[in-house]
């Protein structure tokens, strides 16, 4: 029983990260009907921003002989600096997301879906490879941003990091629900996702809404990146690929375009993966996510919480 409960906690904390990532995918898909392949790399950038916020580094440009040591003097092991780092990463990635949308996706709004998809793949590869160039491919140890304590009770062990992940994700999720349901921008988001022609007819600035959505999704990805790195403190430029794919599966599982669905899908997938990992079939774990994807697409393509859409001709 203790093992089951322990795995439950492990699964929830993993699932919370997937949920944060899945939210970004689902929001962008809901509005633009396209999968932002570069989302998982914004996740990676968030983790690295977190790393460099507390690690002194040197900004050097060989060609102009510039070598600038940068040290933001943000400490580790403190709640205040931890929150600050989180916010910095979220802000940075929100800007990054908006920039990507503006430069790479917006000009292609009228083009075929495939073109945008390929561009997204290009952006994803670009982020990964620039990351490899700047940060080098060997894994970096992520510092402990928040003070870490371990609790053990009744044979269960939980680290504050795990609790933090679950807590922060829940908070962000509630925040998102608030934005989407109770604010003007949120209503505009829902309008654009429902019918983007009609929404522009009623005076909504689609471009602004789309930018906002990208920024929001990217901020969540950054938070996810930092939380993930806190729990698995080894970051490298390709770290986003597998979690990104799994988060996408989670989004589809919950019903793509559906925000609570993404959260549900994320948690479910985290749980499934953890239990498989702990069983004798752990080497199949990576494949499980995809197996889930295929099953869902075959039997209930709209996802658990999605509504079935009929294609009008």
């Amino acid at each position, binding site marked *: 029983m203790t093992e089951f409960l322990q*795995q439950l906690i492990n699964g929830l904390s993993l699932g919370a990260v997937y949920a944060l990532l899945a939210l970004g995918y689902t929001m962008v898909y809901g509005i633009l009907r396209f999968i932002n392949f570069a989302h998982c790399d914004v996740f990676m950038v968030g983790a690295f921003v977190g790393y460099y916020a507390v690690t002194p580094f040197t900004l050097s440009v060989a060609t102009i002989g510039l070598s600038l040591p940068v040290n933001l003097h943000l400490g580790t092991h403190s709640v205040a600096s931890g929150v600050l780092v989180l916010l910095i990463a979220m802000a940075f990635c929100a800007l990054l997301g908006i920039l990507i949308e503006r430069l790479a996706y917006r000009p292609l709004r009228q083009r075929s879906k495939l073109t945008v998809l390929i561009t997204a793949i290009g952006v994803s590869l670009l982020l990964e490879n620039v990351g490899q160039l700047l940060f080098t491919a060997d894994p970096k140890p992520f510092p402990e941003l928040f003070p870490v304590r371990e609790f053990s009770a009744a044979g269960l062990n939980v680290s504050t990091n795990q609790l933090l992940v679950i807590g922060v994700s829940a908070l962000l999720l509630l925040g998102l629900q608030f934005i989407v349901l109770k604010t003007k921008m949120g209503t505009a988001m829902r309008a654009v996702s429902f019918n983007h022609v009609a929404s522009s007819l009623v005076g909504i600035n689609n471009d602004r809404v789309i930018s906002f959505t990208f920024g929001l999704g990217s901020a969540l990805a950054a938070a996810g990146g930092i939380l993930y790195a806190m729990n698995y403190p080894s970051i490298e430029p390709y770290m986003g690929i597998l979690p990104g794919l799994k988060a996408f599966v989670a989004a589809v599982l919950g019903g793509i375009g559906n925000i609570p669905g993404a959260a549900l899908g994320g948690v479910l997938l985290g749980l499934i993966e953890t239990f498989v*990992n702990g069983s004798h079939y752990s080497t199949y774990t990576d494949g499980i996510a995809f197996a889930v994807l295929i099953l869902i697409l075959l039997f209930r393509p709209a996802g658990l919480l999605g509504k079935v859409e009929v294609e009008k001709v």
Partner: protein
Amino acid sequence: MIKVGEYASLTGQEASFGQMSHHGTELAMDELNARGGVLGKKLALLTEDNQSKQGESKTCADKLISRDGVIALLGEASSGRSLEAAPICQEEKIPMIAPSSVDPKVTETGNYIFRVCFISSFQAKVMAKFALGTLKLKNVAMLTDVGLPYSVGMAEYFKPAFLAGGGKIIAEQNYTRGSTDFRAQLTAIRAAKPEGIFVPGYYTEAGLICRQAKELGMNVPIFGGDGWESAKLVEIGGEAVEGTFFSTHFSPKQKSAAVQEFTKKFTDRYKVEPDAMAALGYDSALLLADAIKRAGTTDGPKLREALAATKDFPGITGSITIDKDRNASKPAVILEVKGGKFEYLETINP
């Protein structure tokens, strides 16, 4: 000019191994040239980076052998990548010396393939002996990386050795290289209550595993093989790797004069202490030079003969004698992580 080729993972996931190995080889080459080279000629080291990627080592070997005309190839630290280049060296009759690949299959490829380190079967037996003898563990759990031939090999040899010594393996879990979450496997292991955990994987995952084991409240000794050897183990594992053990080929803290001299030269030049990969890279280059001298030529078949006949070559990782399987029979050292550093614990002889 005698051209010697080297292929290593200078960038990528195992950059740590490749860079250290390359530093060691480079240092050896420079020393040899300072002493006048070999057979009156200077040695030129041509290095190619395989980026820790699968498939690249073959291209590196192709290029070095056919385009650059090297007379021998040094590499690699990782058995999987050595296996890519070995068939080419064998076909082209160019001797290859692997500094630290421990999987037996590497030298089984052909009679032109040698190594200056011990092999997995020996290393795994060493760890079994250590676990039973020094740590006095009666039962252990194993957490193997099934995506890594090195890890699978180690696990395969550890099991019978440990069982033969009267120990019991009470839990076995797997993961694949690149995973970051081992909590599920560790939780399952925890339920079996082992006295120790054997993790024959690479340093990145080992660091994370130790960390997560600690978080799950597991305070039993965790130990592994030479794949743990990297400064990154401590960086990633933090406090969680204190008190863990691993076997390797070399320790800069060993008391011999040769080791101390090498350590000083290496540290002065590269600003980091040498590890097993560096020491083996160094030894592989020196052994090659010695074999060239003994053969009196850089001709492939004759060089091969000289390498195969190597007896008691004084390497800084120990006395190297190449046996009939072209492996080196050498002692292993056990290191313990103490205070963020690798402290030398004991040597286990074959």
